[in-house]
């Protein structure tokens, strides 16, 4: 199918791209060479800031004013793009190359109908009549599986969901029938379920058209699923390149190994696996180390690494840029813990006290009624973000909460914290009912429940030093004097594995992972009984994510606090949680101890979530259809089973009319909300497992 002998569609040679910053030029991409054959999807992975987008934009010759191609060649079908004039590039853009960007929302003109935005391509680059162009636009939309494309052409971007917007962009990119397609994290901002369908679509479209594609992502699993070959980019250098299977089975570069090992896989659990984080952080402008750029973080570096490593070309199309790749091959492997490493699991669950219990908690955000609604006396409407939630967190335990975006995870956390008012239900902490309003909670209650937020960039006041930030909770919640609090700061920093001198730093001088560590230190400073973590790692790179997950685990082992851990990433939740609750549209649909959750039967929604994870395989008797459509609006929730509108295992009318019962069985901690009984569902479903992609 793909012939290595034919001329590559894209041939990049020794490309160096530099940016000007504060008057100085520095290279964000350094001596990168790669080829992509027609019909091939080439994956480019790397952490944030490694230069992936820069490379893509360089290929498109769309670097900003402060960017420039220092040296190298970019040959597209034999033509060196580096030599072309801007006007000539503009012609190529319309015909030979196209970009599918990361943020579909901002990549569409908000003030123009979607159909016009597509038709425009035909009108201006292919000289079509307006009517014909419109017609072609509808056709294109149909091709990317948009239901009712005629209506969608008349919509404005903001009226479409993220997945639909991304389809529109795909349609737009393909409308000029390019020979090179560049995909820059096209699914990163989408839900797993949407991501799965988009990935399928992309794969089949590229295959059909025999387009060469450069697929950029930081998600190794996606690469594994999509690409034939992949390159790993680190600090602008291509450190390794191989066919996918090889890369995952036998990573050669210590960095690639680190990446793979820092990523929890479906089914990994903290009790049995210790994640290996890559120490330190990626170099940025101003302090790129000499010699091997990975040297400061490399576990096997020695003196030789102070010189530039050569690119070793190995058989089977492998390339690696490392002095010691042969050594690294032997030292790999994650630490598997001896069984029963932690004794907290030996304690029987029923002996544990419930720390926090939610009963029938609902949170509705009232909607403002429009004038017309008031006049017509229509009932007040509300976003029913959380509805009738019953949950318990036992002391010393971790409860994981998963669900698609908009399912009410954050709302639940915020209601517990007291920053939003619940509409109904009770929240009890150690048997004492908590008041709704934060201002009415006692300092002691505040002390007992602390939280870590999703976005580390926003978590810390940029104008206070780390030391100042860490002192405060001790002063306010524990009533310590400033002196006492200052004295404890180094301990706190040490606990989150940061050097004591960081107390002097301002948040802008920290990396994202370091910020999140400080946020964790702050939250645990006053020794809370419950730490609520709302997606604490989703903004972080995998290598950093691992260290945060390890940290949370260590802290818990040390303090014995409970954890409410929210994530949309099943693997991450599965790694950390003792119990997992799956919520959909504000309602609990399934809850089980972690070990039990990954065994069938699954609630169809859980099943869909699991099977949508890239790099999973489903050993199913009947392959579950991917989820259709988007999560419905929590304003007008479907009656009956909340999931019936998207359920791939719909039974019939009963699902639409009758709220489903809880299903459970002796011997399993699992409960799920469905009309399909246990045995029947188990018969339909197989077990779902992560790809065995790296345990070689």
């Amino acid at each position: 199918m793909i012939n290595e002998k034919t001329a590559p569609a894209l041939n990049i040679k020794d490309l160096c791209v530099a940016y000007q910053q504060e008057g100085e030029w520095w290279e964000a991409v350094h001596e990168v060479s790669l080829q992509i054959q027609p019909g091939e999807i080439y994956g480019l992975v790397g952490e944030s800031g490694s230069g992936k987008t820069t490379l893509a934009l360089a290929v498109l010759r769309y670097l900003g004013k402060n960017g420039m191609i220092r040296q190298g060649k970019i040959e597209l079908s034999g033509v060196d793009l580096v030599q072309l004039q801007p006007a000539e590039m503009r012609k190529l853009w319309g015909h030979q190359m196209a970009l599918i960007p990361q943020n579909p929302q901002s990549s569409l003109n908000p003030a123009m109908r979607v159909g016009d935005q597509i038709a425009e391509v035909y009108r201006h680059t292919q000289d079509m009549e307006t009517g014909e162009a419109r017609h072609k636009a509808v056709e294109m939309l149909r091709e990317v599986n948009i239901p009712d494309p005629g209506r969608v052409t008349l919509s404005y971007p903001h009226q479409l969901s993220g997945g639909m917007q991304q389809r529109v962009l795909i349609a737009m990119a393909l409308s000029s029938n390019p020979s090179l397609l560049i995909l820059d994290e096209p699914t990163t901002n989408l839900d797993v379920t949407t991501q799965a369908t988009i990935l399928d679509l992309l794969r089949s479209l590229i295959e059909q058209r025999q387009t060469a594609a450069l697929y950029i992502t930081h998600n190794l699993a996606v690469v594994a699923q999509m690409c034939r070959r992949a390159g790993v980019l680190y600090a602008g250098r291509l450190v390794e390149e191989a066919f996918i299977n090889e890369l995952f089975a036998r990573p050669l570069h210590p960095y690639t190994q680190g990446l793979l090992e820092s990523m929890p896989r479906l089914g990994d659990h903290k009790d049995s696996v210790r994640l290996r984080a890559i120490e330190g952080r990626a170099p940025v402008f101003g302090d790129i180390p000499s010699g091997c750029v990975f040297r400061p973080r490399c576990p096997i570096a020695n003196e030789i690494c102070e010189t530039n490593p050569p690119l070793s070309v190995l058989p089977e199309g492998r390339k690696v840029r490392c002095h010691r790749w042969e050594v690294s091959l032997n030292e790999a492997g994650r630490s598997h813990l001896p069984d029963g490493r932690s004794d907290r699991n030996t304690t029987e669950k029923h002996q544990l006290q419930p720390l926090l219990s939610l009963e029938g908690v609902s949170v509705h955000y009232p909607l403002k009624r429009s004038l017309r609604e008031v006049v017509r006396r229509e009932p007040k409407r509300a976003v029913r973000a959380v509805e009738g939630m019953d949950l318990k967190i036992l002391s010393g335990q971790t409860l994981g909460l998963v669900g698609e975006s908009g399912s009410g995870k954050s709302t639940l956390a915020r209601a517990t914290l007291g920053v939003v008012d619940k509409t109904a239900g009770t929240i009890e902490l150690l048997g004492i009912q908590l008041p709704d309003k934060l201002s009415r909670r006692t300092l002691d209650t505040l002390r007992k429940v602390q939280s870590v937020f999703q976005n580390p960039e926003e978590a810390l006041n940029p104008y206070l030093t780390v030391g100042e930030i860490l002192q405060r909770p001790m002063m306010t919640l524990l009533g310590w004097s400033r002196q006492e609090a200052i004295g404890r700061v180094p301990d706190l920093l040490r606990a989150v594995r940061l050097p004591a001198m960081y107390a002097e730093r301002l948040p802008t001088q920290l990396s994202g992972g370091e910020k999140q560590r400080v946020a964790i230190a702050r939250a645990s400073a006053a020794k809370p009984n419950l730490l609520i973590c709302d997606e604490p790692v989703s903004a972080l790179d995998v290598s950093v994510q691992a260290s945060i997950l390890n940290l949370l685990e260590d802290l818990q082992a040390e303090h014995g606090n409970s954890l409410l851990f929210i994530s949309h990433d099943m693997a991450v939740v599965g790694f950390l949680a003792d119990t997992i609750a799956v919520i959909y549209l504000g309602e609990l649909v399934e809850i089980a101890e972690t070990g039990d959750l990954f065994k069938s039967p699954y609630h169809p929604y859980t099943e869909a979530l699991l099977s949508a994870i890239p790099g999973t395989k489903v050993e199913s008797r009947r392959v579950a259809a991917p989820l259709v459509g988007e999560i419905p609006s929590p304003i007008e929730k479907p009656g009956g089973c909340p999931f019936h509108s998207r359920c791939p295992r719909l039974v019939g009318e009963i699902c639409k009319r009758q709220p489903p019962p809880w299903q459970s069985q002796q011997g399993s901690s699992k409960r799920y909300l469905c009309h399909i009984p246990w045995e029947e569902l188990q018969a339909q479903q197989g077990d779902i497992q992560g790809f065995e992609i790296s345990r070689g």
Partner: protein
Amino acid sequence: MLGYSLRRLGFLLLTVLLTSVIIFSVTQWLPGDVCRIILGREAGEKALDACRQDLGLEAPLPVQYLRWLADFSGGDWGQSFSTRTDIFPLVMQRLLNSLRLAVLTLLISVPLAVGLGVLAGLNEGKLVDNLISIGSLSVVGLPEFVTGILLIQLFSFELRRWGLPSLPANSSIRPEAGFVESLPSLILPAITATLVLLAYIARLTRSGVLEEMKQSYVRTADLKGLPRHIVVVRHILPNALLPTITVIAISFGWLISGLVVIENVFNYPGLGRLLVFAIDRRDLPLMQAVALVTVVGFALANLVADLVYALLNPRIRYTEGN
């Protein structure tokens, strides 16, 4: 969209009502005996008393306010204390003059300013941009009275001295003069006002263009292979000019009655000059009428801006109200 418009209208009414309270109270605080001012320095006590009775100044303030509001909204704007003539026709005539000046100013300044702003934005950092930026920033620094005086020196006196056709230094116009007749009188004040607005609008347009050029959808449009001018006209401008619309509307409000200095320099019979006259003479009803007309005009301009903005911005048009 309808719901949106109605809600905006509601806000407008609320603002106007609140402002009317402010105006009423502020004018009540003005020192000086209204009747003494009406009757002049030569009137006696008895006449003064009669006058106070006449004007209902004896009633408690809230009553006076409600009475005033009722009369005012009923179209009965009463008589000016100082000139003893009906306020309504007087204010309307001045409003018309102000509108003329405002419209002419906008006709000159908006295309010019938007053009310059777009030009500067598209050529960021280049010579044109720097010239426009520095030029507009310098114009910003010229107070209206300085510009006005200089323009008069130049276009009225100097030209006249050289025997060339010149523009009038004094812009007072006959009450019944038509637009064409009053045009020569309007030019200098309009230029002066234009100079104030020009820089403001141009800079705003420029930053709007720059802001939009950074957006990803522009990259999308470029990478579609569209010709540059199509990208500019169809993609960048419609979005970049949105904030400009609001500012133009606010400027319109300012033009209607904020031109006190310009009207003073050129002696143009607009609302601003009338208000200064009213304040000088403690002519409360006139003052209140002018201030309120101003506020209504200003609020209306804002309303129109909001609606136009919403109309051009599908994000508002299609999310509110349905």
